[in-house]
């Protein structure tokens, strides 16, 4: 009798957090089941309980070292509501300073993902020597691209430092506002570009990167189009008149044909629409829209979902890039690797928004904080680099947090990532006795396209390597480990 096999990839590499993939193969070497497991647990929601509400934006951001700004600002938005404020009623300087911080965050996080984590696969090849398939190898092969990637990320981090106080784990967003403005000296640093590229240089480099990616996608169209799909209801915040919106807006969710499932929905009502499923083999939950059930209601979030959902981008160069993208791929493309293209377009949008904000004198204002009467519930939604982020706090009159619910961007992509892993595994491995390193890397390429932050998603501590194990029945027949 031919034995079944189980393949485990543990740890998954070049993503944030710690994950494992198991592939179950039957006796005919066909994939029967593929799962992405998140194997770390931290329990952040529990230890936020009992803490004072004003501590939440600083405490909760410790979930992550990559996107702490997103958690900081999302918690701050929720806590604003505890002190009787919201995005419309905050002092204008605070509103725009927070946005500047957020654009810096999305820019640096996307740059980290694209240039450090994804580009080695794309530009060196998914089956290239794993010893060189990293940012160091990229620097040898494409030194100018690697250098620009590092500097674009640095620019984003410096924006964060100027607005939050530190590049990682800043503290400036406080209940009802922000505790610092942007000095003229800080502003000039970004406009002049002496210690780092100026904002206009960053804009121009990103335009070139999009052209470079467009050319890459054209040359590799066959492979990209057949590689895998990103399934699920495309969900994001959306701005005024359907504009791309990263900081504050209303909820939109579209199916793969572009038909609205949710549109113009106030995110404060999310508990009416959202549910989460727990599976015993992963610490990451599976959120879904109640109306469509756990499988059909599974969502996808992040750059590709946002580009699919928005009617336009409110900055000219990114809008032009969006139009080019749509002219080639259509609006509702589910091609998984288009996440990277979408990410680059969003980076350009962020750089344009940063440039616009830097010229706004409101950032030098001194009206920074405003509070009103106490409320017991605060809900914040934000488009973090990896997708829609939800923070929800219930706070007693005394100031004590009684309940905390965090639904993190990557969590929304859980089912979609599992589906993509399954697709790639079946297409590459079915019928193959021998599993190559390149095949396993392509499973990681599929996961990586979502830019998952597994530490955030399970609120877990630790790094994010990947282990792949292959089982026939209960017998471990092969194991690949990277850390």
């Amino acid at each position, binding site marked *: 009798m031919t034995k079944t096999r189980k393949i485990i990839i543990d740890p998954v590499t070049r993503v944030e957090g710690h994950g494992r993939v198991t592939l179950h193969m039957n006796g005919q070497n066909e994939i029967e089941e593929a799962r992405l497991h998140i194997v770390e647990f931290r329990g952040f929601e529990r230890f936020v309980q009992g803490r004072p509400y004003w*501590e939440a934006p600083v405490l909760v951001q410790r979930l992550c070292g990559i996107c702490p700004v997103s958690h900081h600002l999302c918690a701050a938005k929720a806590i604003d509501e505890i002190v009787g404020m919201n995005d419309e009623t905050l002092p204008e300087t605070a509103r725009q300073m927070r946005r500047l911080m957020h654009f810096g965050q999305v820019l640096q996080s996307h740059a980290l993902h694209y240039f450090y984590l994804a580009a080695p696969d794309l530009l060196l090849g998914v089956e290239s020597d794993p010893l060189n398939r990293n940012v160091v190898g990229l620097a040898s092969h494409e030194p100018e691209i690697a250098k620009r990637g590092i500097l674009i990320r640095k620019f984003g981090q410096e924006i964060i430092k100027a607005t939050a106080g530190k590049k990682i784990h800043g503290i*400036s967003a406080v209940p009802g506002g922000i505790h610092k403005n942007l000095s003229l000296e800080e502003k000039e640093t970004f406009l002049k570009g002496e210690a780092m590229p100026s904002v206009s240089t960053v804009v121009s480099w990103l335009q070139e990167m999009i052209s470079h990616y467009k050319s890459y996608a054209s040359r590799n169209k066959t492979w990209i189009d057949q590689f895998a799909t990103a399934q699920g209801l495309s969900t994001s915040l959306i701005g005024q008149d359907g504009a791309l919106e990263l900081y504050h807006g209303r909820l939109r969710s579209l199916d793969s044909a572009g038909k609205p499932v949710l549109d113009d929905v106030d995110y404060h009502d999310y508990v009416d629409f959202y549910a989460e499923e727990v599976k015993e083999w992963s610490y990451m939950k599976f959120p879904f829209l109640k109306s469509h059930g756990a499988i059909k209601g599974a969502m996808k979030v992040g750059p590709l979902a946002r580009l699919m959902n928005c009617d336009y981008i409110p900055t000219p160069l990114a809008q032009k890039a969006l139009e080019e993208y749509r002219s080639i791929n259509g609006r509702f493309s589910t091609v998984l690797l288009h996440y990277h293209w979408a990410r680059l377009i969003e980076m350009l949008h962020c750089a344009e928004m940063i440039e616009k904000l830097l010229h706004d004198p409101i950032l030098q204002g001194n009206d920074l904080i405003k509070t009103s009467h106490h409320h017991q519930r605060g809900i914040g939604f934000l488009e973090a680099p990896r997708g829609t982020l939800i923070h929800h706090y219930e706070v007693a009159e005394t100031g004590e947090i009684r309940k905390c619910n965090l639904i993190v961007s990557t969590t929304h992509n859980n089912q979609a990532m599992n589906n993509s892993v399954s697709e790639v595994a079946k297409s590459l491995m079915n019928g193959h006795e021998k599993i190559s390193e390149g095949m396993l890397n392509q499973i990681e390429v599929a996961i990586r396209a979502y830019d998952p932050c597994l530490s955030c998603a399970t609120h877990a501590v630790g790094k994010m390597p990947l282990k792949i194990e292959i089982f026939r029945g209960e017998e471990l027949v092969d194991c690949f480990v990277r850390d």
Partner: protein
Amino acid sequence: MSNVFFQCDGKSMQAPANTTVVEALKLNGEIVPTLCWSPGIEPCLGTCRVCTIKINGKEAAACTQTISENMIIESATDEIRDLQKAIVELLFVEGNHYCASCEKSGDCELQGLAYQMGMTHSRFPYQFTPYELDYTGVHLLLERNRCIHCKRCTDLFVDDKQRKVFSFEGKGSDTLVQMNHKYESELSDHKRKEVVDLCPVGAIIFKGKGFDRPIGTRKFDHWGDKIDV
């Protein structure tokens, strides 16, 4: 006032009689780390023991001893510096100090000392004793996880009517700082600020205020820069 003569780490020094050893050394340019001590507090509380040195061969808190003729002091030796650092480490493990999310971070005297001493970790096991936060104050939050029982608030602070607002309850390791809620509710703005500033750590903090000072403007922000981790 006449001077007395003494020795510190083999060097001859002098200082006015009736000054504490901490101040006597300071007058001679020798800084002893302190926490519960601050200028003007007479007599010093002597609760934290961070200023422990050797006087005539025996360990003693420098803030509670008066300088005297022919004293032999050991202060800046490796042994004493390590002992002082160990005392700071013990203060950290006894409470639950999470500087990353503490409002007092950057202005915390305990954190400042740790920076100053180059403390990167504790050599002692953390106790993880859970302490209840007192949310019942109108203006102030009592965060007992951060209390180091220095007695500044209980012994040195009174309200505008000269009433004590804070007290200790329990004994030994069960000692907890308490707050008189009626008096706390009547505290004036300047008295609230006074007691928040008086607390060397983040145990007494304003409700709802949070992180009101930008990084870079706080007292000890740059003290940690020199630590080699």
